[in-house]
């Protein structure tokens, strides 16, 4: 069966999103959010919205991951619930 690339990427997006909210380790969550943003960036690029993909790659996968890691560094690494 032939699977188009955007369906494969979309499946990974859903997996990373579910993993990001279910993982107990907040540092892992930050990394998973980075992966999620990068996959979204691929999705935008497949759809031809290159400017949006660029923004998603630099802001979503780059800087916001760093902000999450910085926030984890100053708070706690494990969630309470």
């Amino acid at each position: 069966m032939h699977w188009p690339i955007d369906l494969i990427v979309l499946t990974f997006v859903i997996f990373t999103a579910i993993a990001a909210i279910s993982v107990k380790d907040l540092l892992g969550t930050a990394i998973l959010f980075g992966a999620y943003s990068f996959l979204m960036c691929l999705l935008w690029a497949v759809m031809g919205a290159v400017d949006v993909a660029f923004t998603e790659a630099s802001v979503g996968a780059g800087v916001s991951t760093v902000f999450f890691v910085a926030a984890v560094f100053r708070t706690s690494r494990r969630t309470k619930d």
Partner: protein
Amino acid sequence: MKLLGFIIVCLVGGFLLYGTGELPDWGDPQSPASLHLSNDYIEHAVEETQVPNLVTAVLADYRGFDTMFETAVVFCAGLACFLLLRDFRPRKDHYYRHVPTGVVLHFKDNSKRLTVGKEFEDMDKEWVPSDTVIKTVCRMLIPFIQIYALYVVAHGDFSPGGGFQGGVIFGSSLILLAISYNLKTLVKRVSEKVLSILAALGVLIYVGIGAIAMLMGGNFLDYSKLAPLIPIDPGHIRAIGMLGVEIGVGITVMAVMVIIYINIVSEGRHEEGL
């Protein structure tokens, strides 16, 4: 309670998915979005603005007012982060490392300080500076990242990219400096005062270009009215105006990213952190 939450999430998600069934298909030529304004942009943008990248033409020229306030929003985010997190109380403890022997001195009294130089170096107690390999690689990588960021800003009207992306890339190169060395290295090179001034300056450049266009007798942000000021082919004046505006956006975004990072990672003390 958890089960209830799960059921609500599933229900709302199901309704949302049901709702998206009514939306037009991706790239549908009959959808309302691509019937009216998009055609106009696609047909006239290049001859009106001489900018090959339609996205930049729409963002920085047709919707210039919108982008101006987006920049102001980014500036406000940096300001809010500063106001919420900045802590001006001085730190009590000071750690110094004696460089030749590696002995660490701990000063509990705030009034006594050592002069930092070749003999003693200031030390972070919460973040041990990384390995030599990481330091060297990052030091070699940072100039290239910064050149790339400038390229992205400068080529915003020819290729994907622009002020926002370029500013974020430039800001993250500075953040990389803080991560690979330590926060003091970054704060020493780019002080808080410089960053604050840059964050405001970017918005000022954007608004200033708009105001100059107004002074020249046009509408706010009407770049074609800038033609008498810049000795260049009048057809390209809108592209030049857009470039100026993108530079303003890039400066603000770069400064705000670094301000947010420094304030989060050092709990507002600007002294030590990741």
